[in-house]
């Protein structure tokens, strides 16, 4: 088992992100459509990983707010892949959660909003489960 101190490295492995290459230009945050919904912004996610504060990342709203549109990955001049860091943090969170999913299929009718596009629904199911 990996210890707590190995979390950042595990996150790097899962995400394939190159946090050390970041030059803090902010292009990820500039490109992000969900920026306002995030408590930790995409560029900050990179900084959090650099200093190893994985817990904060996992507990952020960002992991749920990220749409995985990958605009930040497309535009990042250093190929850092911020969205993959966010994605990896979310995955780690979900895995830690174990078999109790955040959302079960039964909860869904309740939460259903008639305006929600189908694709988002499918994406959400993927997102909220392992």
């Amino acid at each position, binding site marked *: 088992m990996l210890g707590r101190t190995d979390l950042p490295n595990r996150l790097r492995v899962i995400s394939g992100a190159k946090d050390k290459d970041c030059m803090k230009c902010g292009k990820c*945050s500039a490109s992000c459509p969900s920026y306002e919904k995030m408590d930790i912004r995409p560029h900050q996610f990179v900084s959090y990983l650099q200093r190893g504060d994985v817990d904060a990342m996992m507990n952020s709203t960002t992991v749920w707010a990220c749409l995985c549109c990958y*605009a930040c990955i497309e535009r990042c001049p250093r190929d850092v892949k911020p969205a993959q860091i966010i994605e990896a943090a979310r995955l780690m969170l979900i895995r830690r959660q174990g078999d109790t999913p955040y959302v079960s299929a039964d909860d869904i009718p309740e939460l259903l909003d008639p305006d929600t596009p189908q694709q988002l629904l499918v994406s959400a199911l993927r997102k909220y489960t392992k």
Partner: protein
Amino acid sequence: MKRVGVFVCHCGTNIAAAVDVGEVVDKARLERGVVFSAEYPYMCSEAGQTMIANAVKEHNLTGVVVSACSPRMHEVTFRKAAAKIGLNPYMLEMANIREQCSWIHKDKDDATKKAVSLTSAAVAKVHLNTPLFAGESPVTKRALVIGGGIAGISVALDVADAGYDVDIVESTPGIGGRMAQLDKTFPTLDCSACILTPKMVDAATHDNITLHTYSEVESVEGFVGDFTVTIRKKARSVDMKKCTGCGACYDKCPAKKAPSEFEEGLSNRKAIYIPFAQAVPNVPVIDREQCIKFKTGKCGLCETVCAPGAIDFEQQDELVTQKYGAVIVATGFRPIELGKFGEYAPESKDVLTSLEFERITNAAGPTKGALVRLSDGRKPKSITFIQCVGSRDTTPRGKAYCSKICCMYTAKHAMLVKDKYPDIDVNVYYIDVRSPGKNFDEFYRRAAEEYGVNYIKGQVGKVVDMGDHLVLQAADMLDNRQITARTDMIVLATAIEPLKSTKPIASMLTASIDTNGFMTEAHPKLKPVESPTAGVFLAGACHGPKDIPETVAQAGAAAAKVLGLLSKSKLTTNPCVAAADELACNGCSACESVCPYGAIGYEDRQINDHGVRGNQRLAAVNTALCQGCGACAVTCPSGAMDLLGFSNRQILAEVDALCR
């Protein structure tokens, strides 16, 4: 057999602390042919060198081994000392027992053992050394400058002023280069044309300078001191001798639809044109792709109006061949293509590159200096500058390096806008502001402090052209907020790259380029203006992004190097060159095909192999061209080609000794 002397250096304690020097001396004495072996605290000192000199005389030494520091450090020192006492300098070898032994091995036994081994390898090699002599090659006292921008003009003027002939080859119809396109220059905001045009005229009128405009380098042969260059003078369709520069031809030319290169395509020019009003030479050129006469056979209006009869539709490309002693590459730069940076909406008419913006602000430019949106001609209320577009970008679409000039010209642009139109809101999105030149930081701060330019640390993620305005989304890294803003004009600080023609020119010169396509310098610190290829020098942005003062400084430095070369009557050549054994060579041409310098030719000769006579095609090495890499020696299937100073036998002897 040689009589070899071995001299082992303590280098103070640098060697002696880790290596048992006495043991190395004793073991060396047992090596074949070693008749003298000694140690000294500092072999490179005057006294140490004297010790070698005395031993050579006293013991009649014919080979010397110095076991000391790296040969890269002191081989020249010791070889000079050997030459002084009449020993051929190439009869001396060094064993590197400091950098590659005492400094890295802590165990004294191991280090000593290795020092003994390295010394014995040097002894084994020196037994096979032969006296080598540097050859001589002539120096043609004429220089060729490739590129007629500020770099090329500066270097040409400096060399010409010293009394040597200089030719400038410029691919466009006139000299001046990028600097001619600029409006003002930082950090003084003086007018670019005002300081450049006199230099252009100086160059054109200098007795020692010959301009070849609208010309390209066709081929290069030869080597330092003795280059033979063929220049293709593209057909101008205008007789330069007859043309008076009156301009009647381009006034009357009906073909008006060619995008002007000088105006970055922002306006059109005629089919017969001069690139810009102050062009040097002031002789037009016919763009045959655009000219109605060339396309349809009808028209010829220019010919009709040309009083001196200078128009010549029949003119052909002309090849000029000239010898040069030195070549200076000054081919300059261009902004990168922005096709892959769709997020900045580069297709929008109101999104400009910085070079386009230079033309917009220039009084002689397409808008006559009026700052207006090119889409609708309105004066912008807000202008946004975006830095690092394609620079510092390690993805395949960008350039990993900093383009260096953008921070300062953006400050210049911002200031110029604010100066003329204080009401325009100017925002600059930056990652870092880099301003380390003389008066540079002050200049940038003035833009922010005195002119009220908004500097926002952060990048722009997306630009959308809304028709009558642009919308951008950006990040403000310091406020940790996302900005969605309206603006009327966007200027992109586009990364710069070397001209496409740099690569073919470099390969013609057998000079190297780096992974970004810039010319490589011979040494990043100690030889910053020389190319690794002897006799080829670098000036300006072909070598890396540079601003004008730096370009002019490098041009001056290159000129000094060129003068140093041209002032010599003869050059000595590298004695460690390839040589073919005529008894083994079968003339197969393998060596010729790998030589990076074209130094190998062939000749048919009669040879006498121990009484067997016959004609044979044989490889012949031009020792002035050969740089001594040894590619030929390895590729030679017959083992006929060998490298003096690093012969097969010498290296094998070292292998044998080291593996003992």
